[in-house]
C-alpha cells in the first residue's frame, strides 16, 4: 500500500530549515510519499539534496522531488498580484511539493501545470 504523508503549512511554518528537511527525510525514509503544502526555498532544496546525499547507502538510493507552483510565467498580472499578496500573507505556503524515496517514486514528469509520477508499492514488496 502506498502511503502519503500530508504536511500542511501550519505544521512546518515554525520549524527551522534543518527541522523541515529532517522531518521530510524521516518520512521519506519510512517509504511515505510526502505531500508538502507550499514550497521549500531554493537554498532549502539544495540542503535537502545535500542531506539526501549524506544518507545514501545500499538501502536508501535518494529521493525524487517535484514542485507545483502557481507562480507561472503565463500568469496574468492580476494572478501575479494575488500570488504576491498570498506570499506576503502566507509565506511559502503557495503550491505543493512532492517528495518520495527513489525506491518508491520511479519517475516524475512535470510541466508548469501538471505533475505525473510513477510509484512502486515497496512496502508490499518488503512484506512478500
Amino acid at each position, binding site marked *: 500500500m502506498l502511503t502519503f504523508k500530508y504536511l500542511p503549512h501550519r505544521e512546518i511554518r515554525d520549524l527551522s530549515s534543518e527541522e523541515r528537511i529532517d522531518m521530510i527525510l524521516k518520512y521519506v525514509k519510512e517509504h511515505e510519499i510526502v505531500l508538502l503544502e507550499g514550497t521549500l*526555498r*531554493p*537554498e532549502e*532544496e*539544495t540542503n535537502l*539534496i*545535500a542531506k*539526501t*546525499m*549524506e544518507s*545514501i547507502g*545500499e538501502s536508501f*538510493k*535518494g*529521493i*525524487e*522531488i*517535484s*514542485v507545483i507552483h502557481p507562480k507561472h*510565467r503565463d500568469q496574468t498580472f492580476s494572478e501575479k498580484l494575488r500570488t504576491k499578496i498570498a506570499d506576503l500573507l502566507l509565506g511559502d505556503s503557495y503550491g505543493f511539493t512532492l517528495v518520495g524515496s*527513489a525506491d518508491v517514486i520511479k519517475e*516524475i*514528469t*512535470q*510541466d*508548469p501545470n501538471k505533475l505525473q509520477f510513477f510509484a512502486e508499492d515497496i512496502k508490499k514488496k518488503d512484506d512478500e
Partner: protein
Amino acid sequence: MFDSIKTFFSSFLSRFLGKKKDVRIGLYGPPNGGKTTLANRIAKDWLGDDVEIGSVSEVAHETREVAVKEEVTIEQNGKSVTFNLVDTPGIATKIDFEEFVEKGIDEDEAKQRAREATKGVIDSIKWLENVDVVIVVLDSAIDPYTQVNITTVGNLQVRDIPALLVANKIDLEDSDVQRIKEAFPEYEVIGISAKTGDNVNELYEKIIRIA
C-alpha cells in the same frame, strides 16, 4: 521584460568580469549534460590540445570531484577575458550503484563510485559559495523541466550569481534548444555541441562580449 532581464544579467556579468580578479566561472548542471566535455573543449581551444580537465564517460557521475583550471584566457577580435574554470560533478537527487552495475561496472567499484558521487554532489553545492559566474550545461536532447534544473537555476537567482544556459548536444537528432529556452525564458540560452565544437564560438563570443 525578459529581454531587459537578459540585458541586466549581461551588463552585470560585464561589470563583474571587468573588475574582479580571479573570477571563477563554474560549470553546473545535472549528470551527463556534458560539463566536462565542455571544460575539455574550452581547455583544448585555449590552453592546447594536450590539456584535459577530466575524463568523460557514457556512465553518469564520471566527474566526482570539483576540478579547477586556473587562468584560462579567451581571446577574440583583440579582446580577452581571463578566468578560473571550475568543473563540478553533476547535481542529482538519487544515486543508485546498481545503475552503474547495469552499465557493466564491477559491483564493488560501482558502490565506491556511488559513494564518491554522493560526496561530489555535496561538493558541487558547497562550491556555489565560491563561483562568480555560472554556465549551466543542459542536455538539449532531454526534457529540461526537472526539479534539479529548477533548483539549480533557482539557487543562482537567490544568490545573485550571473548565469548563461548552454543547451549542449545539438549534434543529436533529438536536440531541442527551444524547449530549454521555453523552460528558462529569463536566461540567455546558447545551443552548442561541446563534443563536436559546433557553435562554441558563440559561447566564447558571449563571454568576451560581456567582459
